[in-house]
């Protein structure tokens, strides 16, 4: 099992935390500034399938996708129907929403089973413990203030590595 990335969105549709783990070489942040032969080849054909995206752009796209799919699911299946995950040939995106409309999103490889429970655990045992119960953290995390504290980050890191085993 491979975990690619993890995002938290608050109820104002803002990405308050994002973390990436495995990123294949030559993709996104690890890209060199010199063009490589593959890119030139792709530029001659139609638009390359994997364009380089910045982290913020990625988060915005992910939010747009889960927001649309969540609305689609509740419109088709009624209000009590919840969107759980979707899969493409390359990756699988898991989605969990708390009652306060916090959205937890995790992108993994396609062989992973349902991660609802895991995302719920991340919320209950990590986010609530280290972010909500932190007296110095603000109630609203505009721009991610208060979420990326040391305890939360290290606990999340540990949680994901134990999950992988």
């Amino acid at each position, binding site marked *: 099992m491979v975990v690619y990335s993890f995002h938290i969105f608050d109820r104002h549709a803002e990405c308050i935390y994002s973390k990436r783990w495995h990123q294949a070489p030559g993709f996104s942040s690890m890209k060199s500034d010199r063009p490589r032969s593959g890119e030139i080849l792709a530029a001659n054909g139609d638009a390359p399938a994997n364009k380089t995206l910045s982290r913020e752009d990625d988060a915005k796209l992910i939010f747009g*996708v889960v927001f649309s799919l969540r609305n689609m699911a509740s419109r088709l299946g009624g209000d009590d129907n919840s969107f759980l995950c*979707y899969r*493409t040939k390359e990756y699988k995106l898991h989605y969990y929403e708390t009652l306060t409309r916090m959205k937890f999103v995790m992108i993994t490889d396609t062989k992973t089973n349902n991660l609802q429970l895991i995302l719920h655990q991340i919320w209950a045992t990590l986010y609530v413990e280290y972010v909500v119960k932190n007296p110095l953290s603000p109630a609203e995390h505009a721009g991610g203030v208060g979420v990326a504290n040391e305890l939360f980050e290290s606990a999340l890191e540990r949680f994901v590595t134990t999950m992988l085993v």
Partner: protein
Amino acid sequence: MVVFSLLVVNKAGGLVFNREFHTGLATLSSNDLLILAGTFHGVHAITRQLAPAPVQPPNTPQNFPVRASGLEVLESSHFRLNCFQTITGTKFLLITEPAQPNVEIIIRRVYELYADFVMKNPFYTVEMPIRCQKFDAALDHFIKSRP
């Protein structure tokens, strides 16, 4: 085993066919269905962009650039939506109950019926809404004859 409905979306994102086989989902007006198909078309394109790792090239030697696939299966607590995109960009969306097995086979067979009764119909204009009695009948027969 329940197959709720089938939607066909053309390559421009317009809904060209929809048929409900089994009640259980919310009934949507045709306007809402059009919005749904258009939204899905857009989301499908974005999901291709989000691929975290480069696409694995297939083993066969070829010069075509490998493209990421978009959304294939969407799971929710009440239903599962399977999307099959043909090479020409037409999307078949099959909505089934979450535990439905062999959806790939069903969707392939639906594609076959589409090729037989819609594409071979001389009066059908491509990318236009599908109104073919034989396609409807064959589809109903196929879905309802499944155990």
